[in-house]
């Protein structure tokens, strides 16, 4: 729009100039009466003035006076133009003495922060701020939904947490019977790594107890824990089964503790469900309430950190205790997938607890769309009753 307006005024200016030139040429006598006077007389600028002007060698006030003359005097203006062009000095160099030269840092800073510059910078900054806030808010929402999504699965973890406490009461029984010296060393190492990384949480207590109680899973996870975060080594109760080498010892431990575990599980499940009923559904709350189970946690950590740390605690302890429960689970293979029965749910052995899951209710539109696309999932869902967690094409689905 602005460009169009500029073009219009430019065209008008050209038209006007053309008209005036034609009018001047139409006159028989050159331009005006004063043109008959020799240039250099009082009417015109003299040669010294012309050359000084052309060389930009005049004080500002004098130059302004001559400029006013040059605007109206075609003769002098043309001579000055010729002289200036013939001189051909770099314009900026000649004008350096007269134009405002920004030299000091304060002037440069002032120029940088001038409204002319900021008129472009401010909208960009505002836009950037809006994008940053939007990103932050969306991220927060996403995290909240993820926590909510996992709350259900983590409730199982909470159940096993109490179980692990129970198991911790008889570490010597299982630890000494089921593992050799090497395994014990491995479990201690694992316990050490765990306690180093989560020094403020109840993991320390639970981890050491769990490690002592079930050293079976620890050696198999040692490598993993040494290269990644130790918390990640702990798996929930429905995590994939441990490596075969760890299996015999796990089974032995199970035999020893099965009775105790069964009794305590029922009690703890009831307690955990009661707690869940009191909660809003978000795992963060669950965790923060569960965390005080460890005496070190509740008093030392801020609630926010507690909320974050507690799931991993629960997972860790659940993983340790879950190692027992896993051993009892039955395994079925459908459509090329292996499923382990864990806590009333069928869990794909390829499922990793760190994977995010998509909840799909049986009979829902989403479920119909899923089984339409993947008939094998339909087979799995039909053959396995209750809750099923299946990993399909890299994504985990919780069918319930």
């Amino acid at each position, binding site marked *: 729009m602005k460009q169009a307006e500029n073009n219009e005024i430019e065209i*008008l200016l050209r038209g006007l100039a053309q008209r005036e030139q034609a009018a001047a040429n139409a006159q028989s006598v050159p331009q005006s009466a004063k043109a008959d006077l020799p240039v250099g007389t009082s009417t015109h600028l003299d040669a*010294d003035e012309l050359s000084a002007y052309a060389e930009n060698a005049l004080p500002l006030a004098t130059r302004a006076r001559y400029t006013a003359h040059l605007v109206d005097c075609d003769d002098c203006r043309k001579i000055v133009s010729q002289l200036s062009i013939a001189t051909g000095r770099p314009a900026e160099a000649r004008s350096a003495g007269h134009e405002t030269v920004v030299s000091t840092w304060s002037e440069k800073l002032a120029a940088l922060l001038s409204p002319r510059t900021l008129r472009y910078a401010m909208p960009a900054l505002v836009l950037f701020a809006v994008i940053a806030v939007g990103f932050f808010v969306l991220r927060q929402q996403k995290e909240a939904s993820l926590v909510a999504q996992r709350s259900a699965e983590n409730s199982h973890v909470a159940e096993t947490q109490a179980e692990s406490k129970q198991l911790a009461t008889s570490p010597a029984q299982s630890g000494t019977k089921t593992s050799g010296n090497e395994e014990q060393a491995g479990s201690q190492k694992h316990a050490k790594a765990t306690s180093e990384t989560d020094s403020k949480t109840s993991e320390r207590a639970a981890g050491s107890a769990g490690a002592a109680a079930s050293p079976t899973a620890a050696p198999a996870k040692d490598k993993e824990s040494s290269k990644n975060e130790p918390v990640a080594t702990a798996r929930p109760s429905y995590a994939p089964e441990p490596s075969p080498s760890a299996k015999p010892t796990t089974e032995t431990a199970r035999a020893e503790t099965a009775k105790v575990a069964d009794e305590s599980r029922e009690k703890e499940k009831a307690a955990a469900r009661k707690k869940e009923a009191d909660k809003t559904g978000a795992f963060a709350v669950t965790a923060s309430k569960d965390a005080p189970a460890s005496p070190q946690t509740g008093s030392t950590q801020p609630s926010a950190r507690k909320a974050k740390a507690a799931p991993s605690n629960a997972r860790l302890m659940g993983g340790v205790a879950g190692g027992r429960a896993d051993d009892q689970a039955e395994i079925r293979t459908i459509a090329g997938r292996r499923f382990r029965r864990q806590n009333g749910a069928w869990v794909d052995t390829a499922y990793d607890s760190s994977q995010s899951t998509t909840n799909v209710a049986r009979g829902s539109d989403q479920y119909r769309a899923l089984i339409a696309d993947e008939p094998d999932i339909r087979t799995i869902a039909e053959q396995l009753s209750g809750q099923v967690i299946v990993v399909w094409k890299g994504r985990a689905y919780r069918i319930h």
Partner: protein
Amino acid sequence: MSERSLQIEKLVAEGAQRLLARADDRYSIDIEAVVPRARASLDKYLLRDAQDASAKAIADFLDQLQAGDLCLVLACERGDPSAWSDLVERYSTTVRSAARSAAGNEDAAEDVAQSIWAELHGLRLREDGRPASKLAYYSGRGSLAGWLRAVVTQLAVDQHRKQSRLVQTEEDADFDRLARDGVNGKEAPATARTTLNPENALSDKQERVEMEKALARSIKELADEDRLLVKLYYFDDLRLREAGVVLGVHEATASRRLARIHVELRRSVENILIKDCGWTKTETEKSFAELALHLESDIELLLAAEGVARDKSPRRAD
């Protein structure tokens, strides 16, 4: 003598001494010759517009005088043969070049070049018996080369005018008329087009006249520097780079100024048309667009008719 005058005298004397110290001393110029010249330059270019100029401003002004050139000129005025020899040797090329570009043809250029040396030497004698040389007008503010170019250009213009008047015969008048017709012929295509295209009758309407009057008035209301730029670019047909050289600014600066002037002119013309001519804003915008459209086609037709369109358009492009 007032205190101010004494102060200025003192400053000029000190400035003249510094000037001699800066200059080549081979002509043995006396400070007595320098002081009146420096004072004249000071009065002409500084004190006339800034009577209360500070001592520092005066000293700076004097220190910016072209010491070497001024001493050479003073030596020539004094009749120093070596100075004349130096002057001719150094500046004969400059004079010839300036004469060639000002006179238009080689013969006229040679005439101008010869005349200028005579003028510089001084054909007439002054009251004190010395030749009345044009060199007396050199102030030392600009370079001697620039001053010589200016003198040559002025002389060429004067000679051209004199010759034009002397040989102005009836035949020339006929040629002038033909030339005028040719110039007027610039508008012939527009007229012809008007006949061909009735829509373009708009250009002859009252609104066009009012708009051009408003534009002319708006140009007059611009600052002198801006008016000069408009004159140089639109009326003298200079390129932006050349206009920038005249104004002492870079081409980019001239371009920015021109863009700002467009905006100012547009706003001013609209205001005049709305306030003084009773136009509405919509009418103004519509007329701008229509008139620009017609003028643009006028100019295109005109340039096409003259066959010079392609020579001109690259100049405008910059």
